[in-house]
């Protein structure tokens, strides 16, 4: 009789409201009004459909009726307030009591997601359903989050769910390719970069960060060349080296990439700040890099002779290019190691 399909609840808000009191499926239910006490502090002006739905919900909830009409009522209650976690929890109790088909429940959540894909309760519920369905649900969950990402590729809840699916249910095989696809669509998508890092560090089939580092450095640098103003691949590149400062210093691809950006004289903020990091770790720049930095200076005061002068130059260029963070770049220059006497 009552189904958990999305169509009835989704349509409710748009069709004319039929009072529950005149619906045969709710015959015999005595609505239970909200008790705000004699002088309510937060007297909210509820809409009629909201008030009636919640009065009926309260009734079935307090009598613990775990029936098909209770399931329908939770659909209605969710459509008027999808954030009511008590309703969602009751719905789970009803689903269990009825031995309901949970694949239909997935459709219900997809209907809710269409109206608000950033609702915490929805995602928690979806996880509960997927967990019950087990590893067979993996591909459907990945497909579901993929659909969400088509509308909002940075939906934080969806990424969290997707990470949980991969770790709990599997499906890693195509994940790196999926990240590449998303980054092709929007190379500024930081969530996709984060997911890429997640995959290369946690996928059971790729060998881990050390095995993947080399190819990933090339991948990041390619993105940097295309858009040097993109914060993400710079952070990703740094993250590939984690705490391995020696390896970071000695990978010539890194400072070559910085040099390449500096020579173009545009969008060089992250290139410069990366060089600053390297200089701080003892990097000895070649003449080409020194010249590239010098050519970005606007004043001729002081020669970029020693490395500490060079690093100070970098800081003052950055302070000029990124005045909003002038205090940060000033602080960076105060932290520079003192140069040895030349």
């Amino acid at each position: 009789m009552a189904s958990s399909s999305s169509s009835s609840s989704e349509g409710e808000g748009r069709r004319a409201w039929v009072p529950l009191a005149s619906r045969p499926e709710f015959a015999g239910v005595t609505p239970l009004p909200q008790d705000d006490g004699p002088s309510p502090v937060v007297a909210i002006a509820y809409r009629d459909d909201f008030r009636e739905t919640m009065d009926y919900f309260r009734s079935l909830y307090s009598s613990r009726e775990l029936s098909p009409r209770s399931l329908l009522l939770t659909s209605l209650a969710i459509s008027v307030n999808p954030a009511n976690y008590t309703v969602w929890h009751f719905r789970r109790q009803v689903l269990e009591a009825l031995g309901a088909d949970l694949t239909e429940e997935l459709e219900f959540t997809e209907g809710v997601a269409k109206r608000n894909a950033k609702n915490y309760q929805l995602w928690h519920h979806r996880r509960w359903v997927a967990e019950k369905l087990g590893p067979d649900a993996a591909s459907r969950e990945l497909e579901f989050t993929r659909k969400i990402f088509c509308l909002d590729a940075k939906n934080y809840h969806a990424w969290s769910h997707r990470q949980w699916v991969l770790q709990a249910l599997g499906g890693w095989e195509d994940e790196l390719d999926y990240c590449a696809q998303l980054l092709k669509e929007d190379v500024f998508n930081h969530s996709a970069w984060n997911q890429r890092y997640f995959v290369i560090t946690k996928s059971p089939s790729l060998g881990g960060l050390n095995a993947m580092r080399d190819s990933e450095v090339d991948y990041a640098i390619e993105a940097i060349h295309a858009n040097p103003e993109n914060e993400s691949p710079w952070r990703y590149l740094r993250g590939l080296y984690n705490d391995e400062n020696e390896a970071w210093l000695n990978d010539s691809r890194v400072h070559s990439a910085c040099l390449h950006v500096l020579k173009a004289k545009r969008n060089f903020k992250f290139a410069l700040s990366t060089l600053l990091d390297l200089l701080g770790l003892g990097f000895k720049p070649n003449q080409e890099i020194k010249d590239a930095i010098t050519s970005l200076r606007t004043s001729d005061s002081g020669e970029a002779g020693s490395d500490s002068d060079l690093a100070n130059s970098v800081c003052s260029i950055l302070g000029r290019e990124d005045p909003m963070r002038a205090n940060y770049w000033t602080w960076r220059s105060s932290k520079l190691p003192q140069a040895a006497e030349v």
Partner: protein
Amino acid sequence: MGELAGDKHVKYILSVEKKKDNLLGKLDTVDSDEVVSWILQCQHESGGFGGNIGHDPHLLYTLSAVQVLALFDKLDVLDINKVTNYIRALQNEDGSFSGHIWGEVDTRFSYCAICCLAILKRLDSINVEKAVRYIVSCKTLDGGFGCTPGAESHAGQIFCCVGALAITGSLHHIDKDLLGWWLCERQVKSGGLNGRPEKLSDVCYSWWVLSSLIMIDRVHWIDKEKLIKFILDCQDTENGGISDRPDDAVDIFHTYFGVAGLSLLEYPGLKATDPAYALPVDVVNRIFFGRCST
């Protein structure tokens, strides 16, 4: 630049009958007995609080209830043991916290639990070491924190993690320079702050980002004047209230965070706010240095 239309905001807040207006120094416009009585009606037999009467208890609302009671200096109405027991039961084996008994895990709940228990002076009732270890496991490649291990850095989650680490005396786990830089990079051309790279600025990040920067002692890395201007531009100076960005509709959430952000920026006429507890400094002082609770 414009000014803070404080009186208009008070009027707006009272029009939606919300309680968090202490920063404007107008707490006495609300009847504290009524509020306290209503809050207690939201308490469940488990000791936790729901969002409204008859709602199941949840860590989020338990923290809110305790914070509001602290604002009104009415913490003594609580059975501290009961609330403590509710919270400690939500700590999981790995140190994380669930938001409610049905298991949703998120570093937001670590913050709620730790902040709440600290206000109640019962932090020792949970396994703090494990709680800290879990939070640290949520650190990301750019020095920030996500909702669970592996999740992307997000300014809201960062506030929760940094706040929890601050309250438990564990800020040494943070690379403050790296995180400070990530946080100050949230400031965009308009002077507003976003929550993640390449996202839109939003007034609420004036709280999440700013409080985090203050806790790690790096707030001077953003351009304060530009941020103040951004927040003031988000005001509705006719009818009161603050919105997420200029010219959008106002709501109580952004009104709170806009005012709180201005307080952190030491805007004149506002009370000082504690960045970890999200309460006025005088309230925090009263909790920890005032008369002892029974």
